């Protein structure tokens, strides 16, 4: 009787709860867990560096941002849309191109687009 109760009620409910946790974890898992995955902070710093035309620092900042994004994708890929993942990757790539070309206007457009994508990621 006890085994039947566990198999028929406890196990399915636990499974559903685990599934819900996996699927709804995007907004939690996008937050930083260490020092190498602080993407939002990195883009905010990059924004300031671009405003101050500090291109050398901006170059290393965007490289850090792209590596941080790679780490975050591993965690959030089961709970967010693939399109958003590609959109953010595209924005980062365009920012990188803008930094290489030292085009601050193009970078600013992408940075603000990135903020919107980041806000909606996992929500």
């Amino acid at each position, binding site marked *: 009787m006890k085994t039947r109760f566990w198999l028929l009620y406890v196990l399915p409910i636990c*499974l*559903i709860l685990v*599934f819900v946790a*996996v*699927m709804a974890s995007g907004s939690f898992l996008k937050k930083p867990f260490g020092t190498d995955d602080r993407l939002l902070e990195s883009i905010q710093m990059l924004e300031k560096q671009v405003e101050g035309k500090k291109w050398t620092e901006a170059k290393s900042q965007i490289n850090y941002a792209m590596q941080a994004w790679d780490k975050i994708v591993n965690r959030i890929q089961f709970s967010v849309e693939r399109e958003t993942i590609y959109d953010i990757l595209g924005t980062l790539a365009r920012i990188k191109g803008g930094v290489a070309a030292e085009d601050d206007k193009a970078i600013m457009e992408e940075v603000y687009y990135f903020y919107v994508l980041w806000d909606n990621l996992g929500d």
Partner: protein
Amino acid sequence: MMEETWVVAVRSIIAFLTLIIYTRVLGKQQMGNLTYFDYINGITIGSIAGTFATDLSSKAWIHFVALTIFTIITIIFQYITLKNRTISKLMDSDPTLIIQNGKILEQNLSKMRVKFDELTMMLRQKDVFDITTLDYAILEPDGSLSVVLKPENQPVTAKDMHMHPPKSKLMTEIIIDGLLIKQNLEERNKDINWLSEQLKKQKITIQDIAFAAILPNDKLYVDLFKDKITEKIDMGDYEGPF
């Protein structure tokens, strides 16, 4: 690095297990007894589970919510139709009489959009090859046909013959894959000594048996792992290699 294969694998596992849990919650209505709505609803739930596993352009959560809502609404409707006969009739439709006293009721037939060919096919499936042998035929909400034969065409029963046949019993399986099911043996008021005696007579052991059961007449049916069939029947209809 994002790996689509892994994402699809994880989502497939979630969709599969969710579907098992939800279908278990929905109950054990027999496939043959499903109404047209139940059938379409089942297909929709299956389709949502399919996109849940493979449609990576939207969040898994969205599909999970849709699957859950469909299941909850189905359960609510199951409950309402169980408690309220009017809604039940609205949802599941009524059985429709399509043959009365051996005559086809064309209006009812066309209302149900059943063709004469389909009617004759359904009659044949019910072993009715002469429409005049029927009193009634009723088209059920699940699309199947029920027939009532005229009294003179109905098969003779033991009751008609004033006979008293022995009480019906079930076949009880007692050995499956060489393993004894003691509980079932006791259910038929037999013990291990009786079984050993029976097996001794046939010069076999429990381990040799793939399936054994006590028949309704209390005799033992035994099927061995080695069937010793020499004459093979070919069910294939062409010579090919498979």
